[in-house]
């Protein structure tokens, strides 16, 4: 019975294709402020019909039951809109492990993009904080330049980008010191079990 609820408990982050020797350093979502504008708009949309009803409803006799019925349907749509926004937010993630970086972006229910970068291929990392609010709340874009002509890996609007940059660099250095000639040493260890 306890196992049935285990998915709701805090755990080591696991994801599709996670290797047994791989450790998740960071699971990153966009900063909460990115959601703030949308949630504020939804909060206004939630109270607007009730405010209208309280102002105008008294002029229309007998509207009460019909109004609350229509408002409850409006609430259903509102509830779905809220969770659609939250779902897109929660599925837009960047995973930093001690072996690789995974960029998973969700653009609607049936449009999902997953890209992966081995940590050894990092050339340089830059952080872009481009607005006063982003500066105060400490969020911004983190761009990873890889070898060759491949497009940059961009972490969009993540919290504490400088701290994340330092940790990625530390993980990169550690990986390079452990994996001479870029040969995966852990594969052999786990293959032998």
């Amino acid at each position, binding site marked *: 019975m306890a196992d049935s609820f285990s998915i*709701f408990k*805090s755990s080591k982050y696991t994801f599709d294709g996670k290797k047994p020797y791989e450790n998740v350093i960071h699971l990153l979502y966009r900063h909460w402020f990115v959601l703030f504008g949308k949630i504020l708009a939804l909060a206004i949309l939630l109270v607007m019909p009730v405010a209208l009803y309280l102002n105008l409803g008294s002029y229309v006799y007998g509207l009460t039951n*019909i109004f609350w*019925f229509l408002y409850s349907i409006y*609430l259903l749509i509102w509830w779905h809109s809220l*969770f659609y926004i939250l779902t897109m937010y929660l*599925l837009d993630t960047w995973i930093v492990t001690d072996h690789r970086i995974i960029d998973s972006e969700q653009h609607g229910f049936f449009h999902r993009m997953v890209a992966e970068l081995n940590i050894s291929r990092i050339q340089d990392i830059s952080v872009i904080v481009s607005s006063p609010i982003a500066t105060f709340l400490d969020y911004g874009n983190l761009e990873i330049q890889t070898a060759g002509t491949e497009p940059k890996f961009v972490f969009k609007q993540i919290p504490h980008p400088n701290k994340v940059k330092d940790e990625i660099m530390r993980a990169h250095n550690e990986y390079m010191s452990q994996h001479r000639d870029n040969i995966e040493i852990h594969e052999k260890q786990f293959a032998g079990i």
Partner: protein
Amino acid sequence: MDANFIQNFPFGLVLLALLVLVYWIQAFFIIYHLIRFGIGPKPKIFSLIFFVGSALLFMLVAGLYVNADLSLGSISKIFPDLINY
């Protein structure tokens, strides 16, 4: 086709059933995505909250539908200038 069948066909009820179906399919998509693709416990907790909220709101709508008089006669009493029934 029998003319009586068309006259007696509950178009409103079928439309309502379709809307309910669309509503729960949409709810399924949200719950499925949160559980299937979400990483860590946070998306799973959100999916549980969403499911409970959806079920409660659905029951609320059903309850208010029973109480609300949606007949044209009733609506025409509320808006006599707009609807002459």
